[in-house]
C-alpha cells in the first residue's frame, strides 16, 4: 500500500516537474500591493498558465519606486523582465527612445489589437508611428460626495463654479471640510488638482491646443485657471481645511475623513473606487459620484479627463519575447477574464481599455461604479474628454506641474511666472522630441 502511494506521489511530482520544465518562463515585473497581488496571481498568472502549455508566466511583485529603479538598471544592462510595466507614457517614451522596447505593430495587426481597444488608449502607446505599449489601466478623475449628507442638508451636487462655491460655504458652515484630499506620501497628488482646473476652467480644447503647441501655457485662460485653484486651495482651504493640512494628510486619512463626515466631498481618481467602497461604503452613509464641475463658461459641458495608469510593453532584449507577446494577446483576447480581475478592484485597477458594450459591465460591482462606467463611455464617446497631466505631459514639465505648484501656493512666485517657466519646459521638450502621443481632437 505504502509502495503504491509513494509511486503515485512520485508520478505526480515528476509529471508536474516535466510540464513546468517544458514551459518557458515569461517574467513580468509588477507594482506590489498587498491587496491586489493575490488576485493578480490567481486571476492573471495562474489563469494564463492554465490556459496554455507553452509558457509559464511569473509575476515578480516589488514596491513601485524600487521596482522602477531596479528594472531601469537591469534594462540598461541589456536584461530586465520580458513584460515591462511602466507608470505611464512618459516612461515608455524614455525606454522607446533608448531602443529597449519591441515594436508591436506586426502583432497588433496579426491579432487585431487596434479593433479591440478604445482608439485614444491605443494611440497613447504609438511612438513615431509604431505601437510600443498597451495600457494596463486607464482611469479618470471624478468628484465623490456623501450622498446621505447631501440629502439630509438638501445640498445640490455642484455642476458649476457658482454652485461649487455656494455648497462649499454651506459645508464649511457645518464645520466640515469641503473636499477630503491630501498629498502626504505622494507629492504628485497636486497634479490631479492642477489637471482638474486646467481642463474644467480653460476647457479641454485649450489644453489640447497647448499640448500640441498651438497655444502658449502663458495664455490668460490658464493663468485664471491656476489663480482659481490657488484661491480655493490657499484662501478657502477647500482640501482638508487648509494648505498645511492638505500637505499633512495621506491616503488612509483622507479616506477616513470622507467616511466619517470630516469632509463632504472628495476629488480623486477612479483608482479609488475599491477603497471608497471599503471606507464610506462600509459606513451608514451612501456615497455618490459626479463629473467634476464646470468652472467657467469656456468648459460648459461635463467632461472626463482621460489617463493611462500603467502600461505594458515587451522588452526588446527580453529572453522570451514570444511568450511576452502571447501574454499580452491573452489579455487582449479574454475580455471576460480581464473584466473579472477589474471587478475585484471595483474597476480601480487592471482596467484595460478594451471596447465594451453596456452588457459587458458586470452587475455584481457597486452600482455607483456601474453608473460611472456607462457615463464615462457616453461622455467621452461624445468627444467630451480632457487630458490628465501624467499621461500627456513630457517628463520635465510633468514634474514641474506638481513639484513647483507648491511654490505658487506658497506665494513665492506668481502664476504668470510659473506658467512662463512651464512654457519654457514644453518648448525644450518639443525641441528635443520628448512630447507624448495625444489623440486627435474632433
Amino acid at each position: 500500500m505504502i509502495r503504491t502511494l509513494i509511486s503515485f506521489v512520485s508520478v505526480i511530482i515528476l509529471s508536474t516537474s516535466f510540464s513546468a520544465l517544458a514551459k518557458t518562463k515569461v517574467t513580468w515585473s509588477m507594482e506590489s500591493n498587498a491587496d491586489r497581488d493575490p488576485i493578480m496571481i490567481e486571476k492573471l498568472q495562474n489563469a494564463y498558465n492554465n490556459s496554455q502549455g507553452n509558457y509559464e508566466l511569473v509575476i515578480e511583485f516589488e514596491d513601485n519606486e524600487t521596482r522602477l529603479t531596479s528594472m531601469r538598471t537591469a534594462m540598461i544592462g541589456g536584461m530586465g523582465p520580458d513584460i515591462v510595466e511602466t507608470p505611464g507614457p512618459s516612461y515608455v517614451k524614455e525606454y522607446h527612445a533608448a531602443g529597449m522596447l519591441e515594436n508591436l505593430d506586426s502583432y497588433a495587426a496579426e491579432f487585431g489589437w487596434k479593433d479591440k481597444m478604445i482608439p485614444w488608449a491605443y494611440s497613447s502607446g504609438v511612438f513615431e508611428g509604431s505601437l510600443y505599449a498597451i495600457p494596463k489601466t486607464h482611469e479618470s478623475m471624478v468628484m465623490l460626495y456623501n450622498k446621505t449628507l447631501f440629502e439630509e442638508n438638501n445640498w445640490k451636487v455642484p455642476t458649476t463654479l457658482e454652485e461649487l462655491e455656494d455648497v462649499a460655504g454651506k459645508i464649511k458652515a457645518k464645520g466640515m471640510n469641503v473636499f477630503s484630499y491630501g498629498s502626504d506620501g505622494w507629492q504628485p497628488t497636486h497634479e490631479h488638482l492642477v489637471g482638474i482646473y486646467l481642463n474644467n476652467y480653460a476647457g479641454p480644447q485649450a489644453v489640447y491646443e497647448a499640448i500640441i503647441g498651438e497655444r502658449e501655457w502663458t495664455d490668460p485662460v490658464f493663468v485664471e485657471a491656476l489663480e482659481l485653484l490657488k484661491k480655493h486651495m490657499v484662501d478657502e482651504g477647500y482640501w482638508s481645511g487648509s494648505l498645511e493640512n492638505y500637505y499633512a494628510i495621506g491616503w488612509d486619512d483622507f479616506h477616513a475623513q470622507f467616511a466619517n463626515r470630516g469632509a463632504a466631498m472628495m476629488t480623486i481618481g477612479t483608482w479609488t473606487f475599491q477603497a471608497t467602497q471599503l471606507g464610506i461604503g462600509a459606513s451608514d452613509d451612501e456615497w455618490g459620484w459626479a463629473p467634476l464641475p464646470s468652472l467657467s463658461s469656456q468648459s460648459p459641458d461635463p467632461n472626463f479627463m482621460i489617463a493611462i495608469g500603467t502600461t505594458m510593453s515587451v522588452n526588446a532584449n527580453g529572453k522570451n519575447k514570444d511568450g511576452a507577446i502571447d501574454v499580452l494577446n491573452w489579455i487582449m483576447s479574454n475580455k471576460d477574464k480581464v473584466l473579472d480581475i477589474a471587478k475585484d478592484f471595483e474597476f480601480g485597477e487592471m482596467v484595460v481599455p478594451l471596447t465594451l458594450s453596456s452588457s459587458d459591465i458586470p452587475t455584481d460591482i457597486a452600482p455607483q461604479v456601474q453608473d460611472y462606467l456607462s457615463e464615462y463611455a457616453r461622455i467621452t464617446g461624445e468627444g467630451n474628454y480632457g487630458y490628465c497631466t501624467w499621461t500627456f505631459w513630457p517628463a520635465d514639465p510633468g514634474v514641474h506641474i506638481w513639484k513647483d505648484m507648491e511654490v505658487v501656493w506658497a506665494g513665492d512666485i506668481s502664476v504668470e511666472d510659473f506658467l512662463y517657466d512651464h512654457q519654457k519646459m514644453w518648448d525644450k521638450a518639443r525641441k528635443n522630441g520628448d512630447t507624448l502621443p495625444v489623440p486627435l481632437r474632433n
Partner: protein
Amino acid sequence: MKIFSNKNFVAWYFVFPVAFIHLFVIGIPSLASLALCLTDWRGLGEINYIGFENFIELFDDRYLKKAIINNVIWTIAFLTVPVGIALTCAYLLTGIKRGQMFFRLAFFFPYMLASVINCQIWKYLFHPIHGLGGFFERIGWDLLAVSPFTMKSTSLFAVAFVDGWHFWGFLVVIYLTGMYQVDNHLYEAADIEGATKFQKFRYITLPMIRPVFVFSIMIIIIWSVPVFDYVYILTGGGPAYSSEVIANYMYSQAFERFDVGYSSAIGTLMFFYVMIIVALFGLFRKAGWDI
C-alpha cells in the same frame, strides 16, 4: 619578486581587498559621474557631450541656490544645537556616578533606530489629526494644530530637529569617551585652586578633548553636505522647496526628471565642496592643530 615578500608590503595584502571593492563601488561610479556631468544623459539611451551647459544652468537655478542656503543653515544648526547640548550633557554625565549607563543608553537610543522609524515617530506626533495637535484640540487647546513639517517657515527646522534628536546621542558618547581620557589630576589641581565647574570645563575639559571635538565638527560639516534621508522621508524637500537640500534636489533631478547629466553636475559640485573641507582640515593639521 622580493618586493612582494617584503615585510613592509604585507599590509598591502590586507588593504587590497577593501581597496579593490572601493574602486568598483565608489571609484569607478564617481569617475563616471564626473564624466556624465558634461553630458545630457537621461538615464537611458544616447549620451551626448554638451560641454559645461549643465554647470551654466546650475548657476541660474534658483532652487539649487535655495538648497545650498538650506544646507548652510542645516550645517550651522548642527554645529550649534546638538553640539552644545551634547557637550553639556556629556560633561554633566561625568559627574554622575550611579545610573550613568541608563542616561548614556537613553541618549544613544535614537541613534540606533533606523531613520524611517525616527521619522515616522515624529511625523505621527506632529500629525494634525492623530498627533499632539489632534489631542490638544480634543481638550480644547489650540496647540500644534498644524504640523511644522508642512509649514514653509518651519519645515527645515522641524526636519533638522528630528535629525538632531537622533544624532546628538552619538555626540554625547564620543565627547564622554574623550572626557574620560582627561587626566584626573588636572581636576584635582583645579579643585585645590578653587576653580568653579564652568572654569574646569572651559580651561581643562574643552582643551583636552580638542581632537575629539574638532573631529566631531569635521564630520558634522561633511555629513551635512549629503544629508538626504530625513528630508526625503519627512518633507520631500517641501513645501515649496522650503526644506530642500542639495542631495534631495540631486535625487529629484535624476529620478523624477530623469536629468542624469544635470544631477551629476550637482554631484560634482558636492564632491568639490567636500574635498575643500577635507583639504582645509588637512591644512590645519599641517599647521600643527591637534586633530
